[in-house]
């Protein structure tokens, strides 16, 4: 591997790692901080991607503004959906054991898949990359890099900064962290923990759906797409240390590098490299890289 190829592979790894963080960030909130084993996370991602596909024509004709207004409307919609979902289903799960959480969230996967099949059908659909991001940057004599992927990376970096700021520097972040370590205590301090959790859940849903919307032009939308990201998201959150945002970031980047170079260096074992890395890290640090609290 010459230097240029090596550098391009590093860029690929970084870009994939950031994308993983984006996809897993919602799970960090819902599973990491709120403690609900949310198997439906992949479905949230899928819902976002399908929103990007299905809403586009309607928004284009009524609002205009292309992909970015779709993102905005989708984001608002997903906050609402997340809020309602928490009220209707997830609010009953906090005190239940893991088995019940798994059962209900697995049930939701089936419901969402079936709804998707009824509403949009079972075909594969493409989502147009917005005009101004459609170009590409030359990297080597033949290889080019799509601008949209760079845009996604930039979005991820902005998201990382935003999440750090909210959690470490704001009162809201403080309350969320406090709620994660002791619900009753926070409640007795006069904070409406139920409302707080509803907001955090809505944010978690919105992040997952946002990831789906942003990924849709690159990955296209198709049945079962959520299941493919679900496992890798759990891997990221578990390696990073449950409840830790910086842990999730480090883990996502690590997985990005392991996956990219695994495919190049040990192609025959590429499928297990990520899980091997997870096993090694958990043997070394059973609570993940950065344990919260």
């Amino acid at each position, binding site marked *: *591997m*010459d230097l240029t*190829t090596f550098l*391009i*592979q590093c860029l*690929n*790894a970084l*870009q*994939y790692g950031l994308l993983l963080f984006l996809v897993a960030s919602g799970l960090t909130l819902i599973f990491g901080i709120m403690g609900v084993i949310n198997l439906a996370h992949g479905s949230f991602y899928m819902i976002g991607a399908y929103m990007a596909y299905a809403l586009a024509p309607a928004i284009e004709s009524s609002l205009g503004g292309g992909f970015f207004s779709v993102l905005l409307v989708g984001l608002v919609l997903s906050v609402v959906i997340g809020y309602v979902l928490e009220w209707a289903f997830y609010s009953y799960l906090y005190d239940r054991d893991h088995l019940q959480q798994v059962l209900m969230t697995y049930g939701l996967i089936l419901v969402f*898949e*079936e709804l998707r*099949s009824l509403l949009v*059908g*079972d*075909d*594969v*659909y*493409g989502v*147009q990359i917005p005009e101004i991001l459609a170009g*590409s940057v*030359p990297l*080597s004599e*033949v*290889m*080019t*890099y*799509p601008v*949209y*992927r760079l845009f996604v990376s930039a979005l991820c970096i902005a998201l990382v900064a935003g999440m750090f700021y909210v959690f470490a520097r704001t009162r809201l972040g403080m309350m969320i962290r406090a709620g994660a370590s002791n619900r009753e205590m926070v409640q007795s301090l006069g904070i409406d923990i139920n409302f707080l959790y509803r907001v955090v859940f809505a944010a978690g849903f919105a992040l997952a759906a946002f990831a789906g919307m942003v990924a849709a032009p*690159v*990955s*296209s*939308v*198709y*049945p*079962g*797409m959520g299941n*493919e990201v679900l496992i890798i998201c759990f891997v990221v959150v578990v390696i990073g240390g449950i409840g830790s945002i910086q842990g999730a970031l480090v883990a996502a980047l690590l997985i990005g590098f392991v*996956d*990219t*170079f695994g*495919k*190049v260096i040990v*192609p*025959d074992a*590429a*499928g297990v490299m990520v899980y091997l890395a997870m096993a090694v890290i958990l043997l070394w640090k059973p609570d993940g890289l950065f344990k919260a609290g």
Partner: protein
Amino acid sequence: MKRLMTSPCAVIAAALTMAAAPAQSADPIKVGMMLPSTGTYARLGNNIKNGFKLYVQEQGGKLGGREIEYVEVDSEANPAKAIDNVNKLIKQHEVDVLLGSVHSGVALAMAKRAKESGTLMIVPNAGADKVTGPMCAPNIFRTSFSNWQPGYATGQAMAEDGHKRAITITWKYGAGEEMVKGFKASFEKAGGKVIDQLYVPFPNVEFQALLTQIAAAKPDAVFAFFAGGGAVKFVKDYAAAGLKDAFPLYGTGFLTDGTLEAQGADAEGVKTALHYADALGTPRDNAFREAYAKAYGDQPDVYAVQAYDAAQLLGIGLAATGGDVHKSAEFSAAVRAATIDSPRGQFTISKSHNPIQNFYLREVKGGVNQVVRIASEALEDPGRGCRMK
């Protein structure tokens, strides 16, 4: 009267025939459809059911003089549930014919049970080489393809186009590896060289690292097999990485079938080999497409064609055996001797019960898989491991 009584055996035989004959024509043939109706392959499953039923309808609902009745089980494209599902069809519903499946893992499990129970089985899609290889049996037929075939045909086409050095890329699982094997066999036979074989873990769709590898290796052309969402993403990523203009992309037809709309302009110029194409333009195909569109309000695809031909095959066998699916030897002999008048073009069935058929080289032009030429004429799978003579 007395004379007749002297031969009790004859009387019993006559009585049996008399009892059996009306029963046979009165009882419908039960076709157990084990196809996915949910999940990723739901659309394929649906088109297969439609294709099969269309032919039966055209024959007035009867094949070989017997009514056709359907029992449907959702295979969920899940090999883990395949044995349970196929047992349900064979034992509980007592089906006469098994039709399935889309997924190779499911089809292999079905074939195993079909081989044990002797139930007639027709595979309308799954391409696992084994089904008409080591697993072959007098009662197991396939009307689609073996994975080896489209791979082999693509290799021939790429070599004929003058390419010498190729890289292959696919998912690391059965179908991908078998297609690459077929591709390599013909491409290297024609003097080309496969300089690298790249694999992506199934069903991972992160291709960037391997695209970088391809750019660094600078082959003449690339052979790819992906399907569904993976195919869409691969073709788009390949174009976005700037590789499409540098190294022409070839593949088996699944790369651009049912996915063209989602792939858009990025698929233009991609060349694939398959036993069917969107616009063959033959009278037979036109008639089929018109009938299908009229019946279902939708355009047929290769899966519908394969299932339509599965029904034709069943009809040929039933006609030759007087509607008795249990006469395996006669059934098999009739099918092997027959020429099936398929919308894809006429084809015959090989000794291992896989189609001997033409493969078309298609190129994506204006969002359609247009036929360029015949890539491989009357291509027969070698049927490795099959002992049937």
